[in-house]
């Protein structure tokens, strides 16, 4: 598996495309800014949302049980899955009971986390991703590169080529309107035929046992309302206490994600449609471990808006695939190490700790601080690259002893020209700083 640094270097090699990717996402950040500046109460909303989530997480067990009881009373079947494997088994069983061989799925990062599509494919069940961006990357056998804009790394020419191959659209046609219409017709066929629909969950309300799914395209609803069986997959952290709380979150979500006032559809599923089977699968997969750690529990407040992605100068210049797991960007970098420390040890270091992410986060997750904490935990777990630990111990020794520091400093300055070499990563694209004749302390001594 290729590290973030290596993958980014490849990404940036195409400077023009990197600029395009960077500008496209910066534009989304700017739209978010415009929307947030319209509301004088914006910062108060963020604080309120943060407090609701803090309170919920502090009482998660009782809220989950309250949700389960209400949902069940409303006729929704509630399942619990301790990990991705169990989640996939449960979902598969429901589908198998229905006898479906093909089904539609709307956007759910959780199902990406569990690699559900692959699991079901191995069982002979085809999943048709119906979010336009997700269908595009599905055709291309790629992972989504952004949790809200899955195909943001693709130009319209790329989409045109993909649709030409898979939908028979005319070669060379890259008109978004035309291509979207082609996808509409193609996916409409699937919606009308599908017996099973899988959706994600944006929010689940403990008070009423209902859950909310937000889309702009209407694909979640086209699937769910026509299907005999609706399976909603959710992480246990998606619970919020009361219906009124939704006002706060729905005001923040779309504005933070894209600068829109609200998503086109915010569907509140309370009871199954008459004659329909509705299931909800509650997934842990390491969330309880994250919850138990005071340093990281705040990461569970996330409402998956991706504002942090859009503002991150590193993400914009390296692309989602450089993060080598389903949720990229700043939030991904503090969630992924919890799932697999070794595989994701590079991610908390793919940051300058600039803090922009924490300040656009609608629920005030202290992302940049958690990145710092993960660095400590990962190094303590022995996951430092070869040589780094030795280098750090040497540095610690030097900086603890003024005499060694002074000698080391003057040696560094004396032999600095040696660092003007391609072996020095700094020197690849930058000149080294000029070497002054004396250090400040040497100058001060003579003053």
């Amino acid at each position, binding site marked *: 598996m290729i590290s973030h640094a290596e993958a980014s270097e490849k990404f940036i090699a195409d400077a023009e495309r990197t600029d395009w990717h960077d500008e496209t996402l910066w534009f989304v950040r700017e739209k978010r800014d415009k929307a947030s500046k319209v509301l004088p109460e914006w910062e108060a909303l963020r604080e309120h949302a943060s407090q609701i989530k803090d309170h919920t997480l502090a009482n*998660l067990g009782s809220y989950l049980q309250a949700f389960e009881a209400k949902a069940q009373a409303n006729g929704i079947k509630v399942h619990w899955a301790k990990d991705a494997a169990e989640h996939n088994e449960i979902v598969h069983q429901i589908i198998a009971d229905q006898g479906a061989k093909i089904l539609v799925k709307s956007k759910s990062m959780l199902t990406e986390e569990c690699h559900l599509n692959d699991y079901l494919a191995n069982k002979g069940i085809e999943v048709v991703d119906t979010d336009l961006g997700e269908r595009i990357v599905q055709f291309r056998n790629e992972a989504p590169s952004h949790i809200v804009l899955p195909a943001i790394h693709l130009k319209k020419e790329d989409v045109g080529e993909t649709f030409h191959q898979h939908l028979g659209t005319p070669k060379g046609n890259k008109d978004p309107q035309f291509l*979207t219409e082609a996808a509409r017709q193609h996916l409409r066929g699937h919606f009308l035929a599908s017996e099973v629909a899988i959706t994600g969950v944006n929010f689940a309300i403990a008070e009423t046992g209902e859950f909310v799914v937000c889309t702009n395209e209407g694909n979640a609803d086209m699937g769910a309302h026509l299907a005999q069986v609706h399976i909603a997959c959710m992480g246990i952290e998606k619970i919020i206490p009361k219906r009124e709380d939704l006002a706060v979150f729905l005001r923040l979500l779309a504005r933070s994600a894209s600068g829109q006032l609200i998503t*086109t559809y915010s*569907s509140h599923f309370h*009871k199954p449609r008459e004659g329909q089977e509705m299931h909800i699968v509650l997934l842990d997969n390491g969330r309880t471990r994250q919850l138990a750690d005071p340093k990281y529990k705040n990461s569970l407040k996330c409402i998956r808006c991706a504002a942090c992605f859009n503002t991150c100068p590193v993400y914009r210049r390296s692309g989602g695939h450089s993060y080598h797991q389903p949720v990229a960007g700043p939030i991904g970098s503090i969630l992924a190490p919890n799932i697999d420390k070794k595989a994701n040890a590079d991610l908390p270091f793919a940051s300058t700790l600039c803090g922009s992410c924490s300040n656009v986060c609608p629920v005030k997750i202290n992302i940049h601080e958690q990145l710092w904490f993960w660095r400590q935990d990962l190094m303590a777990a022995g996951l430092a690259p070869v040589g780094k630990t030795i280098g750090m111990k040497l540095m610690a020794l030097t900086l603890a002893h003024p005499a060694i520091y002074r000698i080391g400093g003057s040696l560094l300055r004396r032999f600095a020209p040696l660092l003007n070499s391609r072996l020095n990563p700094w020197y690849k694209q930058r000149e080294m700083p000029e070497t002054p004749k004396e250090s400040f302390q040497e100058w001060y001594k003579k003053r």
Partner: protein
Amino acid sequence: MSAREEILGKIHAQSEINHPGDFKGASEDFDFNASLEVVGARVLTAEELEIQFPERRRYEKILDGLSLAEVEVLEIDGEFGVAENGAIWLTEEALPHRVAPFICQHLVINVSKIVPNMHAAYAELNKPNSSFGLFLAGPSKTADIEQSLVIGAHGARSLTVVIRA
């Protein structure tokens, strides 16, 4: 031990962190018509509607959503509109079928009550709950292809709103 027991067993209630209560101080000076325009909906008067969509149809409650698959213009009634964002609250009771506002090609919604913002909206709908409801703001849309906004993704291609007295 079931997964449920295992998961709940790992969650321990933490120190007293209170729910902050209802949000206070939300803006109220929004223009519903302006918001409708922003989300891509069109506003017509009752007279204009007659001229623009004479072929529109209402439907009785139906069990099979697929029977609405060929509907061109569907007319339904919304509970209320939200000035802040142009959203309209629709309930299952007011729909022939849950899929109706999505499966039709063009949608017409009548609305007579407007509330200022989402907080007021939830206060309004916090009565015995419908088994399904949604906030619908404009026609379906996507910007998934190079951030180009395309109106008409999988749901209705257009939304026309008539504000009735």
